């Protein structure tokens, strides 16, 4: 996907042109898939895969090193987050089908020091996220953007059109909600 083309689609996304988000999703999906595949094939058991790194890699490939407004970046990451979630969850399901008894490991990265990696079951997480989405779509979206897209509080706020304070609150709440679901699943 040529960088110029992605940029044009991004413009459409920001302009809320109907269907633009889907086009962007399709456009970046291929790239993301390739990158993710490579990353996961080379993965050791227990290796921590950061979805954020995936998106960053896709972003650099799609846009190149040119500077684009950070708002565009937020929109890109918002769409990419959705894609990443799909890729990772599909991948995890595929692996489960292969009856390999380990899931991908991903971290809840708060961006704060002293974070210790802990593993999560992606499929269960995805199920819980869908459950949350049914009753509290905004909170679910915050998780998707922050967790799968690696967006910062402000970027998430921008992409969703809500305040950073709301993002923070939703993030804390949704995190607890999801972990509770995971713990009782």
């Amino acid at each position, binding site marked *: 996907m040529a960088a110029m083309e992605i940029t044009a689609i991004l*413009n*459409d996304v*920001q*302009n*809320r042109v109907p269907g633009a988000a889907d086009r962007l999703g399709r456009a970046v999906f291929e790239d993301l898939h390739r990158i993710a595949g490579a990353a996961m094939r080379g993965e050791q058991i227990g290796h921590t895969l950061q979805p954020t790194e995936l998106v960053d890699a896709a972003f650099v490939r799609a846009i190149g090193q040119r500077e684009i*407004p950070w*708002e*565009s970046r*937020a*929109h890109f990451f918002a769409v990419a987050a959705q894609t990443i979630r799909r890729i990772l969850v599909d991948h995890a399901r595929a692996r489960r089908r292969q009856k390999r008894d380990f899931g991908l490991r991903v971290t*809840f990265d*708060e961006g*704060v*020091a*002293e*974070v*210790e990696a*802990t593993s999560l079951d992606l499929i269960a997480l995805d199920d*819980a996220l869908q*459950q*949350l989405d*049914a*009753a*509290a779509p905004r*909170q679910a979206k915050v998780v998707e953007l922050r967790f799968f897209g690696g967006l910062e509080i402000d970027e998430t706020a*921008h992409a969703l*059109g809500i305040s950073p*304070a709301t993002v923070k*609150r*939703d993030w*804390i*709440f949704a*995190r*607890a*909600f999801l*972990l*509770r*679901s995971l*713990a*009782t699943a």
Partner: protein
Amino acid sequence: MRDHGLTPARVERMQELFELALEHPSDERHAFIATVLPDDAALRDEVLGLLDAHALVDSRLGMPLSSRLSGVAATGDAWIGQRVGSYEIVRMIGVGGMGAVYEARRADEQFDKRVAMKFLHRHADGPAAVRRFKAERQILASLDHPNIAALIDGGITTDSQPYFVMDYVDGKPLTQWCDEHRLTIKQRLGLFQQIAAAVQSAHQALVVHRDLKPGNILVTADGRVKLLDFGIARLLPAESDADVGPSTLTSVRSFTPEYAAPEQIRGEPTGTGADVYTLGVLLFELLTGTRPFDLRDHRLAELERVVCETPAPAPSTRVGPERPEEVGERSVAKVRSQIAGDLDAIVLMALRKEPSRRYGSAEAMSRDVQAHLDGHPVSGRPDGLVYRMRKLVARRSLETAAVTVAAASLIAGLVGVSLQARRARAEEQRAVQVTAFLTTMLGSANPASLGKDVTVHEVLDTAARRADALVGSPALDAEIRNVIGDTYMALGEFQSAEAQFGRALAAHRRRVPEGDGRTARAYARQSNALEYLGEYAAADSVLRLAAALLQRHPDDDPLHRAEFLDQRGRILGRLGKVAESEPLIREALELGLRYAPDKDSLLATLYGNLGYVSLELGRVPQSESLYVEAVAAARRAFGNEHADLASLLSPYASVLERAGKIEQADTVYRETLAMRRKLLGGEHPEYAWTMFSYADFLLGLGRYDQSAKWCREVLKLRGKSLPDTHPAVATAMAVLGRSLDGMDSLAAGERWLRESLRLRQQALPAGHWLILSSESILGGHMVRAKRFAEAEPLLLSAERRLVVARGERAPVVRDARNRIVGLYAAMGETAKAAEWKAKAMATP
């Protein structure tokens, strides 16, 4: 987690309770939930589950779960001589609500570094608190500002006691320092600005203090402010403060009530707005030596009522008899006069109950303090913007019987602004990045909330500064300038708007040097701003550039064309070229009726403008029916009580008057007066316009005493809301002079007429038709006073020049001619009188 029954409402309730519980110490949260949810066991279990999960999330942030901190009852002295981390504790400095503070020195380095160590009280810690503590201290350690005592380190002792290491500050508490040095008001403002700068810097790092008070603001010997304990409050989710008194479920928080914002007292989530409030309390105290609310004798429940409901007093009203000496002034009155006005306004803005209505930032507040020091207007005045906008708009307008009608072109412009803003919104939807830019940068700067939000300016200024970085992408640069400019327009900041449109044009030149359709629209915007600035000639020539470009790059949107035609027509009308103006506005109206037949606000404008030029062309019946349409459209668009409707009713009344429908005119005048008084208040310049229009109408009816009464009402506002340069002043004087003449108070009448002429000569360029009209009116007075020798040259010369300035058919020309008829009739020169009568009759 139960799958069934998980409705949006239920999840919302869960989140609400979950967040409320988090406001409590970790070991009280379960009890809190049990208290508020005694009956709903299912919901209670769910929220408790969430809280457990939350603790689990926290536990994943690094520390093993095992270590519950033991409540070691350490007495202060036990620490002295101890080594904690790489620090050796020297002495105890003091004990506060949060913990004990010691002086210590770094033990493992050659140089002798003094530090302050703070140990937290025991009872509120727990694994979650410790984890948060460790995470947060990283953020706090990054706070780097000369006015903030840096957090150097922090940790947990081997027996699980959390502690902080901070810069050791050798200073005195803020208020003590001020009093000991008898700082003047100005010096105190300087200290305040240091505090605000520190707070701003922390806010930018997303750290809120939440417990600012003189006790943790120290001033060093060289006069530098140092803020202590920044962010500590947030490390301590639920320390009870010794000053608070008995703890209840909702009130146990780490703050000092006398400096706490209403939302803190209520236990709501707090942000930077709480610190802005506290800055307001501090400034209040720096100025007056007292705090806005005396909470000493209040119980907790009352405390909330006082802080959350009682409006804060203005600091200037709280200057006690001892204050002059403390601030190096001679009298209470002197101190008061320094505080009243700007400083009152600044403090009260910071002390507003709703965080969103306070200053948007500590910096904004500090900037207002600076503006006060520099003698510039401050933004914190109530309704300052609305007032300034109205004043600016009013300054644009023209004069009498014709003056009232000139007010029509005024509304045209006003509505024109909202049209511009609408167009801005449409373009904004196309201009991709601008949308995002607007959402983020302009946020609350919605032109619809005109003037209510003073921080709009700050946002716009920031936006303009940010746009400076966009030179590399001229198209984006131009779009953003347009949007910022449109917003300034809507705020009545025409000068700033014009500057932004100029920048947009420069950007367009970089983009397409020879210009295109978008360049043309940028010219149109600039012209509009110039029109509001009263620079009609400049507005006209800029608009001609736009017209030339549009010849080559036609705009397909018929409504854009209509607006452009209306704009050109308006400018020509303002330049007195009414005959050229009329066909343009007529075409605009035809386009509007054809392509936007239901857009009543647009149609109201266009009908009104065409009504205005029609009247100027002497076509009274036509003008009347156009105004009937305009008023009807305005009522459909805005309802029966609206500023824009009033702006159309006012000229409508004078058209009715000219059509001889006196009773109808009287009714419409009264409706306009009542509406404006209600909408704008009795001192508003636009209300003043309506008052003297009515006065002029009454004058025409020979109801001189009534007329004089309304004129005097207008002139009461002279020097208040109406500066002498305001055309309403001179015009009201002219009408008053004629009313007095009518009551045979000739000497008094002449004084007002001459004063009116003098003001106009001062305010207007030589030869302006209003000056000529004044001369003619003065001539009319001379006739009445039987000073025919003075009257004749004055009247004849004024008439001659008025014809040149306004054309044969202008109402002012007819008035001037009628005065000449009166002159010759009074002199008994019947032939000349008849000749002029015929001339006057030719004017409708």
